[in-house]
């Protein structure tokens, strides 16, 4: 085989698309799994710190005990590997009386949607000229909503198929929870589309690169490292970035940011809205009867959903992979990698925030959640849309 021939073959447009997509999916999926296991560890560690405990600190890196009585535990980092190994090697116990088919299907249904959501998240700008989105869909955000709401089926099925009262209650709660947040979640980000004029996540991020992150009230346009050295330029950039319309739009955008953030908490079944799980009331909620890797899939699904949800928030409101003063991937592969890093840093910070909130707030009752969704967020989100429309129509740039 000739090297030129291989290169030629790899550069045929559809072949090129195929193998780059496969490579991107593979890398992004693995990065996500790593982030998930780190998040589980962070969850345990942060919860420990918040409760004045130490957290897991015993599992060291394997084989570092050679020749010494005291090995270094590296803050218990080995726990990240130990937890999955434990779950993988456990007996997969299936209780009698369950509906076997749906019992086995449910964990997969919980796991798959968050992973599918990853497909449209732009996790970087470009690397070697290849766009760092697995699928650049025009209906990106709609796709996220369509897929993400599917995971409730997995939970409800798990609760029903377990043939036991606590999982059943968890499943019911899950569906009652979904009808209370889903609507306001969809309505809350309509202002974003009105301002950016697109449903495509890549275009929303491109808009934010030029005009600034959607959660900020003003943005120094054309601010760069070079202008830092010239105070006059920097001042000019700041002044150019302040406009009345942007300042007014900040109010509805902040409202929609808060509503969307809270809805993502409900979507991912995190405290204060982890009604289907509710350890204190429902034993383990929908996954009470599950063991081993089936349980791990629920676990993985929950954390992957957290990752996907944070990714959506970052892309919609926090500028995605962009960061002020950092150029995009067209300036070389190094900056492309930095952009990917920026995306992951932002997502990690959001994940930390989710963990922090979990160990702070008590759980809502589900009538309270319904009340919050239907009487609180729904009217506010509707009003928010009109407010944005009025501002866009009356206040010109």
């Amino acid at each position, binding site marked *: 085989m000739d090297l030129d021939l291989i290169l030629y073959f790899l550069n045929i447009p559809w072949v090129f698309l195929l193998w780059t997509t496969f490579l991107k999916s593979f890398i992004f999926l693995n990065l996500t799994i790593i982030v998930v296991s780190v998040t589980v560890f962070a969850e345990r560690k942060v919860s420990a710190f918040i409760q*004045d405990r*130490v957290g897991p600190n015993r599992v060291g890196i394997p084989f570092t005990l050679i020749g010494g009585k005291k090995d270094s535990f590296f803050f218990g980092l080995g726990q990240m590997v130990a937890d999955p190994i434990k779950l993988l090697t456990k007996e997969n116990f299936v209780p009698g009386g369950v509906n076997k088919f749906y019992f086995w299907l449910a964990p997969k249904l919980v796991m798959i949607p968050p992973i599918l959501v990853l497909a449209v998240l732009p996790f970087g700008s470009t690397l070697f000229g290849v766009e760092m989105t697995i699928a650049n869909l025009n209906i990106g955000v709609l796709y996220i909503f369509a897929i993400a709401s599917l995971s409730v089926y997995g939970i409800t099925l798990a609760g029903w198929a377990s043939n036991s009262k606590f999982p059943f209650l968890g499943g019911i709660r899950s569906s009652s929870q979904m009808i209370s947040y889903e609507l306001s979640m969809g309505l809350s980000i309509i202002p974003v589309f009105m301002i950016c004029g697109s449903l495509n996540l890549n275009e929303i991020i491109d808009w934010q690169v030029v005009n600034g992150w959607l959660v900020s009230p003003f943005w120094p346009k054309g601010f760069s490292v070079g202008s830092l050295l010239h105070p006059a330029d920097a001042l000019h950039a700041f002044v150019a970035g302040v406009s009345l319309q942007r300042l007014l739009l900040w109010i509805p955008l902040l409202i929609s940011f*808060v509503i969307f953030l809270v809805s993502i908490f409900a979507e991912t079944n995190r405290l204060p809205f982890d009604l289907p799980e509710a350890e204190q009331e429902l034993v383990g909620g929908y996954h009470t009867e599950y063991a081993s890797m089936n349980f791990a899939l629920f676990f993985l699904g929950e954390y992957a959903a957290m990752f996907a949800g944070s990714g959506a928030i970052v892309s919609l409101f926090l500028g995605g992979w962009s960061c002020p003063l950092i150029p995009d991937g067209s300036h070389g592969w190094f900056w492309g990698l930095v952009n990917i890093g920026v995306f992951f840093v932002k997502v990690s910070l959001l994940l930390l925030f989710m963990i922090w909130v979990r160990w702070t707030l008590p759980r809502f009752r589900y009538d309270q959640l319904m009340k919050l969704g239907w009487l609180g967020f729904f009217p506010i989100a509707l009003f928010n849309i009109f407010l944005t429309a009025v501002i866009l129509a009356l206040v010109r740039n």
Partner: protein
Amino acid sequence: MAIVVERPKLTLAEKFYLPAVLAGLAITWKHLKRAIFNKGIVTMQYPEEKWDANMPDWYRGAPTLVADEHGKDRCVACQLCEFICPPRAITIKPMEIPEGDKWRKVEKRPEEFDIDMTRCIYCGLCEEVCPEQAIYLRKDYSITGLNRAEMVHDKETLYKLGGVREGLVFKWNELK
């Protein structure tokens, strides 16, 4: 009569939840910040750190046999502890003290004295019932062994763990 508890009237800020949420986040943040720098953590790292120095005097750990300051093993093999022991952890094989021994007038002493630590419930009844003040619960709590046989404390181990206990009544002195 039914008591009607009035629901508290919430202020506008309380109805919006967010101020309370932020206040809660501030509190947990304070704890998180403190704990990251290793301050305020209440956990004791067990095998490295122990609470032994703070153990109360009345702590009931492993039962042991004691000798007094005159070098006499105090047990007279009356077997009261064997009878009272609720989980039947104690097995005593008595023997007669041979002619010519310094403590011949005591007449009996244990030939074998086994306490099965896998059965012992640390109730302290043996200590209470002993007429000779020979058996005491000490502060050892970490009794380990690789098999069941190792978990049985024999006479030698029991005296080693118990050691010498001073200030006891010297009942079997020469004058009596």
